[in-house]
């Protein structure tokens, strides 16, 4: 989905001036759903669905036609068979991995937001911390996995959560801080003219302004959290997790099984993403990104 590089540079805004001016036509409030909205949406996802099936069909055809060995690329049909036959064990592993990813995501996000709030409140914190945070954000933090495994105990899910939390922390912190700080000067002047307290400015202007940035970071982080959890699992620990499952099946040359587990990981990742997308819409229905859907 279109969520380009929220970690590094946040695009958003500043360009809606022109469409704001043209958005209003007569008395009809935009945002009213017409019966054609559903059809419109279907037409929107149609190409993606078609592309998916075409790719899977091509994949199946190519692996059959050229008789490709399953350790190179198993047939989709084989993967689907294992996906269903081994469902209970793979999903059990998936839930354990999800637990680690979710735990780490929550810890990393909470810490990221708290530090972001501190950078707004204390300029010194911002100046001291931000350069390191931005540097750390460009470092493959996942390399820490063996170390946190040692630190928090190989068998404890906390060791995996710790990596996930560190991975998630930086994008959340940097983006949220940016959203809180880079507020329109005119909005701040307006609040100043009302003699509003810093707390009021925070609540009325900075926090709402930071929400889109926060959600962008969260979407990136949700994917990162699963990646981090699975990679951390590769370095050892309990067996009933996706990382170990994939690793073991691959060692035993049971590639369709390994791919079935990857499919579960993908479903979890997409589930994460969609959940955040829905939360985003509920929290900020006013946001630019959600306007065009009904107007088009």
């Amino acid at each position: 989905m279109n969520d380009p590089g929220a970690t590094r540079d946040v695009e958003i805004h500043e360009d809606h001036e022109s469409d704001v001016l043209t958005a209003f036509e007569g008395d009809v409030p935009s945002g009213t759903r017409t019966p054609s909205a559903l059809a419109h949406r279907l037409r929107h996802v149609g190409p993606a669905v078609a592309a998916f099936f075409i790719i899977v069909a091509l994949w199946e055809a190519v692996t059959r036609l050229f008789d490709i060995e399953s350790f190179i690329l198993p047939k989709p049909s084989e993967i689907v068979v294992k996906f269903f036959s081994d469902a209970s064990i793979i999903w059990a592993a998936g839930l354990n991995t999800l637990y680690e990813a979710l735990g780490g995501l929550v810890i990393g996000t909470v810490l990221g937001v708290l530090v972001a709030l501190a950078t707004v409140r204390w300029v010194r914190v911002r100046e001291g911390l931000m350069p390191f945070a931005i540097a750390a954000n460009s470092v493959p933090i996942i390399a820490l996995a063996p170390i946190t495994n040692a630190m928090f105990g190989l068998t404890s899910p906390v060791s995996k959560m710790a990596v996930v939390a560190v991975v998630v922390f930086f994008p959340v912190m940097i983006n949220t801080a940016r959203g809180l700080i880079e507020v329109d000067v005119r909005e701040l002047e307006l609040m100043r003219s009302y003699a509003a307290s810093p707390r009021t400015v925070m609540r009325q202007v900075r926090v709402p302004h930071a929400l889109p940035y926060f959600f962008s970071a969260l979407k990136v982080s949700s994917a990162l959290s699963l990646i981090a959890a699975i990679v951390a699992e590769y370095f050892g620990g309990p067996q009933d997790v996706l990382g170990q499952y994939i690793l073991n099946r691959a060692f035993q040359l049971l590639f369709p099984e390994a791919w079935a587990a990857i499919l579960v990981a993908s479903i979890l990742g997409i589930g994460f993403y969609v959940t955040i997308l829905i939360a985003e819409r509920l929290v900020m229905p006013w946001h630019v990104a959600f306007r065009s859907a009904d107007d088009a």
Partner: protein
Amino acid sequence: MSNDARVVVEARGVSKVFGASGSGQVEALRGIDLSITGGEFVSLIGPSGCGKSTLLRLVGDLLSPTRGELQVNGKNPHQARLDHDYGMVFQRATLLDWRTVRKNVELPLEILDSAPAERQERANRMLELVQLGEFAEHYPWQLSGGMQQRVAIARALTFRPALLLMDEPFGALDEMTRELMQQEVLRIWRETDTTVIFVTHSIPEAVFLSSRVVVMSPRPGRIADIIEVDLSYPRDEDTREADAYYAKITEVREALRRQEASA
């Protein structure tokens, strides 16, 4: 617009220098003397760099003067700001995207901690005043530029400020909308009994609206001339075609030219 003789703004020898001491300094305003009485509509006009916006910001305590004395309602601007004596309207409406029109208008009252019932009642009244009552539950982006600016005016007036400070509020609007908005502002001004300071670089706009036009000149910003506009209120479309109106426009234009030639 009862012209009570109460002095609302009093500036004496006000100067503003930007930048740290040394070569990087810019003198934005020099020796401003200006006195504005209650109920007046005063425009500040002049070329870019004449310090008209700076002067407005000094009055509104968004900036502090380098030298000189400035009083608003007999207080220093800082105290006046803390007492909520100002309503401000900028070139861009600066509405908060995440609030409905009504919630935007209620914002200053919310900050002032007034009761929800009173807030709603005031917001409704102000929205009626700017003729946007039926758009109360819309979001800002659903409104045209002119409507957004009207919401900004309603918001600036909800807490009954003594002084309305407007910084090129119609600069981004097309000519037709602009003329409608000018009528609107005059009507609101007369109905609410506020004092208005209005920054613009449009001569016809300044003349049409104002009881006095302050002509400013640049480098450093000074007051070059103050022109009384003795056209009677209410002013309307007929005013725009009156000879006296054209005569005033010419007078302001010549004042602007004069200081340009001498600069």
